[in-house]
């Protein structure tokens, strides 16, 4: 139990330290505490991986009261900011949520004593590994990034103390979400992550950042209100308070659990930024890049899908679950489409995240055992590859001063190491035999046995091909070899390199270790819940591993070709070329060659597709709401 408390408490202590120290000392503390968190989560893995579900009896009363006080204080803080910036929608939501919360705490739950307030199972361990390893790596990366950020943006006030304070609080809250078995506690940590992302998104305090921060806040508060409603429903249905324990609620059956499950999944949908709420995650990219990396890979959105995957057994084979799955699937399809039309690298990454979260929710919503296996795989692979990609884009942005994909031409010459890492990260996102494709493959095989699975397979087939398109053209951009460009990556800091190397190694390593992860963590977890389990067949494992090895060997063929080739300039249709990139145009002028990718605005324009997605997903959520109202009445 102490290990869990350490993981939740230690980041809080570090966070408080962050408010006091600066510069060199901050660097040391962050690196050391990142190491500590990484080791602690590894320790958790080693100690508990074969223990199935372990509950921890920790007293409910004092902690819950402290949480309640913090929640009210935060509500007052948000209220103040909302009035100050004239965001009355946010004000209304926070008032509603605080009112419901007071009603719940004062009126309904006095005298209940849930016992098993903390717990740990294989899924929590996986999440803890993601938070503890990837989350803390991002914190280390942020050290160097923020230093460069402030030398470049001198107009933005240096609030790094607050920044690192919030980062560590964020990690603590994420550990809290995945270790809590008490829904009241999950809700507390849940709200903390909302507030943390609000502060981080608004870090630069420009009008755009402030607006986007409030957008994120109000959408997440909407989910928060639904979550509170779920808590009140549980408190009314079961005065004994037993159902506040996540495991009892999930195993209590459809009749009791479906209403809170759908409400909490709605909260999950807002947090995971599925359509119609995707705009907050896209807006969140105004924040410094490490924040985006954190929000997209190991925290925030992962909390959203975590809770939906937890409720998958309740949703399985219900109409409500099917609707939630459909929201996810539509989000996957449309967000993948929008990504084709974007040239801003961070926006492409954002839409790719939204799409993958959609896919995870689609799997969890249908909720059969083999789809839950896929959902957890997707969470793991996505977290690693996406954090790597964000940090690479951040590094590139710091060097070349642009996050436009069109400006990344020839990156393989200018920043060879970073380009290679981006290449591996992207391969991890869409190429066989890396993680995301393994999951897509497993998803097709799992959907085919699920009722109405054909709809999801069709969406997966089309969405998957969109994915291939936008990643490949980006890859093509960075590997196109333009001569006469200088190498500009030697100024990148040591600790940044270390973080990037580790993440790159993880992208490949997790694919190689995937059979072990599946056998020792995911399969026992599925077995516990459903009584059956799944996995790829031995033969397919072997083939995959062989393909990865082949892929790793292939680059060495370059050694063989190093000499003996005659270099010529690219074919320019017989035009007189001067140097590499210039050709003689009409009237004897020399024109520089520039090439640009296809974006297909007409088919995949952001506004149009997002509008369609919003309509469809709101419609679906409305139907779910009506069904829910029917169940309650």
């Amino acid at each position, binding site marked *: 139990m102490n290990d869990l408390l350490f993981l939740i408490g230690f980041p809080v202590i570090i966070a408080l330290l962050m408010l006091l120290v600066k510069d060199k000392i901050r660097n040391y503390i962050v690196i050391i505490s990142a190491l500590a968190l990484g080791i602690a989560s590894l320790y958790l893995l080693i100690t508990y991986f074969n223990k199935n579900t372990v509950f921890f009896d920790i007293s409910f009363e004092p902690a819950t009261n402290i949480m309640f006080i913090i929640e009210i204080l935060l509500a007052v803080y948000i209220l103040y900011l909302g009035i100050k910036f004239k965001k009355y929608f946010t004000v209304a939501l926070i008032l509603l949520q605080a009112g419901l919360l007071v009603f719940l705490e004062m009126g309904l739950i006095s005298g209940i004593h849930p016992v098993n307030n903390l717990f740990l199972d294989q899924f929590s361990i996986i999440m803890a590994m993601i938070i503890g390893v990837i989350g803390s790596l991002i914190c280390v990366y942020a050290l160097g990034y923020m230093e460069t950020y402030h030398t470049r943006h001198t107009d933005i006030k240096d609030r790094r103390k607050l920044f690192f304070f919030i980062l560590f609080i964020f990690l603590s809250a994420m550990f809290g979400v995945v270790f809590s078995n008490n829904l009241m506690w999950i809700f507390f940590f849940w709200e903390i992550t909302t507030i943390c992302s609000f502060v981080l998104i608004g870090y630069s305090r420009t009008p755009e950042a402030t607006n986007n921060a409030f957008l994120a806040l109000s959408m997440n508060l909407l989910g928060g209100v639904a979550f509170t409603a779920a808590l009140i429903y549980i408190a009314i249905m079961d005065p004994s308070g037993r159902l506040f324990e996540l495991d009892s609620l999930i195993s209590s059956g459809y009749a009791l659990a479906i209403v809170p499950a759908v409400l909490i999944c709605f909260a999950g949908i807002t947090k995971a930024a599925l359509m119609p709420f995707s705009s907050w995650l896209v807006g969140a990219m105004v924040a410094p890049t490490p924040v985006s990396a954190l929000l997209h890979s190991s925290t925030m959105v992962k909390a959203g899908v975590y809770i939906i995957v937890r409720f998958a057994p309740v949703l399985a084979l219900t109409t409500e679950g099917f609707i939630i799955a459909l929201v996810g699937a539509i989000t996957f399809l449309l967000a993948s489409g929008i990504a084709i039309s974007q040239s801003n690298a961070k926006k492409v990454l954002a839409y790719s995240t939204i799409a993958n979260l959609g896919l995870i929710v689609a799997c969890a919503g249908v909720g059969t055992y083999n789809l839950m296996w896929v959902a957890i795989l997707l969470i793991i692979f996505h977290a690693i590859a996406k954090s790597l990609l964000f940090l690479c884009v951040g590094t590139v942005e710091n060097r070349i001063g642009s996050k436009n994909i069109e400006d990344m031409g020839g990156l393989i010459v200018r920043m060879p190491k970073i380009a290679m890492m981006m290449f591996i990260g992207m391969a991890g996102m869409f*190429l066989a035999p890396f993680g995301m494709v393994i999951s897509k493959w497993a998803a097709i095989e799992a959907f085919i046995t699920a009722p109405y699975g054909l709809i999801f397979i069709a969406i997966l087939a089309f969405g998957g091909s969109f994915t291939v*398109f936008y990643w490949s053209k980006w890859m093509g951009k960075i590997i196109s070899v333009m001569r006469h460009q200088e190498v500009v990556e030697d100024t990148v800091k040591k600790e940044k390199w270390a973080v990037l190397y580790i993440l790159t190694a993880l992208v490949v390593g997790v694919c190689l270790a995937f059979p072990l992860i599946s056998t020792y963590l995911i399969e026992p977890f599925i077995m516990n819940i459903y009584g059956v389990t799944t996995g790829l067949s031995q033969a397919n494992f072997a083939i995959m591993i062989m393909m990865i090895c082949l892929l790793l060997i*292939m680059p060495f063929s370059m050694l063989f070709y190093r000499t003996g080739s005659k270099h010529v300039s690219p074919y320019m249709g017989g035009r007189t070329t001067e140097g590499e990139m210039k050709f003689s145009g009409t009237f004897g002028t020399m024109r520089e060659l520039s090439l640009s990718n296809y974006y297909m605005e007409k088919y995949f324009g952001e506004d149009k597709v997002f509008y369609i997605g919003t309509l469809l997903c709101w419609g679906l959520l409305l139907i779910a709401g009506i069904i829910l109202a029917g169940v309650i009445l």
Partner: protein
Amino acid sequence: MNAEPVISLVNAVLFVLIAPLVGGLIAGIDRKVTARMQGRVGPPVLQPFYDVGKLFEKENMVVTVTQHFYVLSYLVFMVVAGALFFSGGDMLLVIFAFTLSHIFLVLGAYASYSPYSHIGAERELIQIIAYEPMIIFTAVGMYMVTQSFNVSAIVNSGIPIILYLPGVFIGYLIVLTIKLRKSPFDLSTSHHAHQEIVKGVTTDFSGSNLGKIEIAHWYEYVFLLGVVYLFFGFNPVLAVAAIIIAYFLEILIDNTISRVKWQLTLRSAWLIAGTLGIVNLGVLYYLKGVIMP
């Protein structure tokens, strides 16, 4: 008990050795038939082999050395995809390996930074996304009929798959047109001389690299026609006849229909996949309880 892996391995090895010969021969016959349709005599049937042989004797010219890597990877993963298929592996895995190999070709084209190969690469990508949904539906359809994604199980099922999947088969013929680089869908590069973007994806490859691309293309022929075989796997004679007819049909279409723009390619391929493919699968899904055991 362990005969099966041995057979798979033998099949895979046979594919690696024989497929280029068969593929080259098909390419030769293709050229001959095409020439006859155009009222020419045409080259000897073995001409593709002479061509490739000569390519390997040429000087090694590149825009960037990375091209070697991409082309080699294209060839290697095409062989892997085909070998997996003929050893009776998982159909979806085969498809993913197949996509992987083509991405390498596209990357090779991007690497050179020539406007012609750049547009060729973009168009090749458009072709990939145009056919990918349909090829997945093909695998899914075969699963729905035979309850397995394994090629060996599909071919040994003895079920006349074509009767259950006529719509999917027509959709697959569209895939075949795109993949065999036949007009009207030969956007990214073409076997015909008339191409508005020179040689598209292959513009900046020469010598042994171009030779490797040709050989990969031969492997691809054999794999793609192997999928046609699956539809008729219950009767090998019929299957071979179906392959010959399908291929002849492709040549006929190639010589009678003019090239279309990428927009129309994408739309028609997706329309076919979205209607014929999905409707076929939907009907099958609905009837599953009625007609299947």
